[in-house]
């Protein structure tokens, strides 16, 4: 069904070029011991991830903020194409921007000078599942997000 993209904010797209070969950048996203060293690096926070990187495999990233709050991002890998493409669902609980079943696509492109351009697309913010989040309401959770967005 055609969608009116002009109406976005339904997705966001980010581009960044990293000073490293593609395989290496892909590894940083897909090896837990590596991801733990850079993902959600709030000063003083601890990150513990488990990544079952295969189609249908589950990942779970647990962040313990300095104040002891635990935030969890979890989902299922939908596409795994090393070292080019990674698609996974993204749900976040705790006070880490609560969303359910959004989708993240990370694409890794080799640039001419041997660097890696990463394109990240986060979409489905307005998926039907989002309607079921009334019990907590977003507003209350959002106030706590300052730890990440301060």
């Amino acid at each position: 069904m055609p969608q009116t993209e002009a109406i976005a904010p339904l997705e966001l797209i980010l581009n960044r070029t990293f000073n490293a070969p593609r395989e290496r950048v892909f590894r940083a996203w897909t090896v837990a011991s590596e991801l733990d060293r850079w993902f959600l690096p709030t000063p003083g926070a601890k990150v513990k991830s488990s990544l079952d990187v295969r189609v249908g495999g589950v990942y779970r990233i647990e962040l313990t903020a300095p104040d002891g709050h635990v935030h969890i991002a979890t989902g299922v890998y939908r596409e795994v194409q090393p070292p080019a493409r990674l698609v996974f669902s993204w749900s976040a609980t705790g006070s880490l921007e609560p969303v359910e079943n959004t989708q993240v696509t990370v694409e890794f492109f080799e640039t001419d000078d041997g660097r890696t351009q990463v394109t990240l697309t986060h979409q489905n913010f307005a998926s039907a599942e989002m309607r079921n989040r009334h019990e907590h309401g977003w507003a209350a959770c959002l106030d706590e997000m300052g730890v990440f967005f301060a």
Partner: protein
Amino acid sequence: MVKYDSRLDATFSALADATRREMLGVLMRREATVSELAAPHKMSLPAVMKHLRVLEQAGLVSQEKVGRERHCRLRAQALKPASDWIAQYRQFWERQFDALDRYLAETQPSTEEKKPCRKPKQLHRSN
């Protein structure tokens, strides 16, 4: 921090439907009557009215009766909280990118960048 109100849920719910997004797309360009909005959707008028009601309750559309017709208008400012919310996610990922950048720099043996010649690509292997 951006201020959020309870309308955020309503906004996202309203946006979570392709028909309603298309209606908003039309209204972004111009005002339209209910029947104009209904035309491309092969939907009954009551069904269209129902979608409009959702949009109206989310504050995204206002209706005004002009003679025998109802004119619908986009209230674009009502999209701002949702747009701001997603902007925060953008910020989240930008921070992750910053962190990844630092991580890669710290853990990679420093090599000469900006090599004049291209690296051979391994994508296509010619036979």
